[in-house]
């Protein structure tokens, strides 16, 4: 199975490229979500409608879904191999200095995945008519969800954890691509920190503002 996917470095390259694609996608999603803060539901619904119906975006949707699946599957395969590479664990915890969040990528990734599944059920399946709701009025659906303190808490936690995931992921992807440079790597690392703070912040500020209104 693993042989089919190529060497360790090839698998990591796939992981990094898929991850970077998702990193590019997040700000787009955030941009649309910010329209939820408007009193008027029309701009958000129009944007959602456009994303759902404009044909070229259909292709993009398939690519996006594929990218998610690849990033998840490859991540799991790599992790299983990594666990197998140390069958007998150390009895004392490792105190070596590392990029802190790198230790938990599979777990932070897993929690984000749970969020994604719920998100998918909420909106995508609604769009397909499998789950009850009005796909032409995602604005209302989202606002309704953001009245539930339980959902908001879950949303908040998910994005904080996504931030942890991104904190290591951003710079790690560049290292995997082979881009490590005395001058530019500190810049990439700084960008990664900024990105991993502000993108999740952007997402979870929305339900808080809506709830408080």
């Amino acid at each position, binding site marked *: 199975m693993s042989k089919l996917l190529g060497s360790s470095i090839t698998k990591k390259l796939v992981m990094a490229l898929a991850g970077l694609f998702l990193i590019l996608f997040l700000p787009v999603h955030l941009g649309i979500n910010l329209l939820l803060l408007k009193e008027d539901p029309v701009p958000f619904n129009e944007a959602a409608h456009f994303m759902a119906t404009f044909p070229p975006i259909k292709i993009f949707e398939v690519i996006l879904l594929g990218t998610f699946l690849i990033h998840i599957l490859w991540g799991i395969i790599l992790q299983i191999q990594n666990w197998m*590479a140390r069958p007998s664990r150390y009895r004392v915890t490792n105190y*070596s200095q590392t*990029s802190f969040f790198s230790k938990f990528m599979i777990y932070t990734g897993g929690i984000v995945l749970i969020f994604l599944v719920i998100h998918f059920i909420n909106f995508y399946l609604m769009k397909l008519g499998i789950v009850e709701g009005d796909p032409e009025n995602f604005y209302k659906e989202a606002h309704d969800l953001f009245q539930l303190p339980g959902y908001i808490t879950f949303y908040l936690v998910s994005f904080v954890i996504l931030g942890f995931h991104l904190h290591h992921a951003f*710079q790690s992807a560049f290292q995997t691509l*082979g881009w490590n440079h005395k001058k530019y790597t500190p810049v990439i690392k700084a960008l990664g920190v900024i990105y991993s703070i502000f993108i999740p912040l952007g997402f979870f500020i929305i339900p808080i503002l809506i709830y408080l209104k």
Partner: protein
Amino acid sequence: MDLTLKVWRQKNNKAKGKFVEYKIKNISKDSSFLEMMDILNEQLIEEGVEPVAFDHDCREGICGMCSLYINGRPHGPDEAVTVCQLHMRKFNDGDTIVIEPWRAKAFPLIKDLMVDRSAFDTIIQAGGYVSVNTGGVPDANSIPIERDKAELSMDAAACIGCGACVAACKNASAMLFVSAKVSQLNLLPQGKAEAKLRVEAMVKEMDDLGFGNCTNTGACEAECPKEISLTNIARLNRNFYAAKLS
């Protein structure tokens, strides 16, 4: 200083291992960690107990044989030293010190604290060399080498193959070692001719031997006694893509 040691004892690869506690007294702060281990073993022999097996050879930080995982860190608490260069002054009187072997599937345990690191030799055999055709000895300065490249190559060549990078990595990945060995040769004109073959062969061997996949945690760089840098891993990745693409 008086110490309590918790040492991993395991008869052989098949046997079940466990920690055994030993008390040791009057250790000089100036003795090295391995001297302390020698004193422990003498004490054990006098008591009629089998001494602890551990690897060592040069005891001056150049051979890469010593390999103890001390209190959760390969080569112990000091920065940029091997265990043989670690001094007891890094510990305090009354401390409990936990000593484990390197743990990785590709480094099977031989006995107690000794593991078999011949997997590294296998990787070197796959491509960590420059094929030399016989003939006259070339003049020493006949091949010009950029100073920067020579420096980077020398830095990479400092790797002593101890395996602390594998031991420290949560994925038991050998990328730092392989990247050092690939960089050392691929950076020099003498290594260029076989650069692509080398990187592909060594990475394949590394994967086949059951080392884990690097997730850029940086634990290897933090623990490497020779301070081999992560930039070597990035170079290994670049060399690997270049080889695959051509």
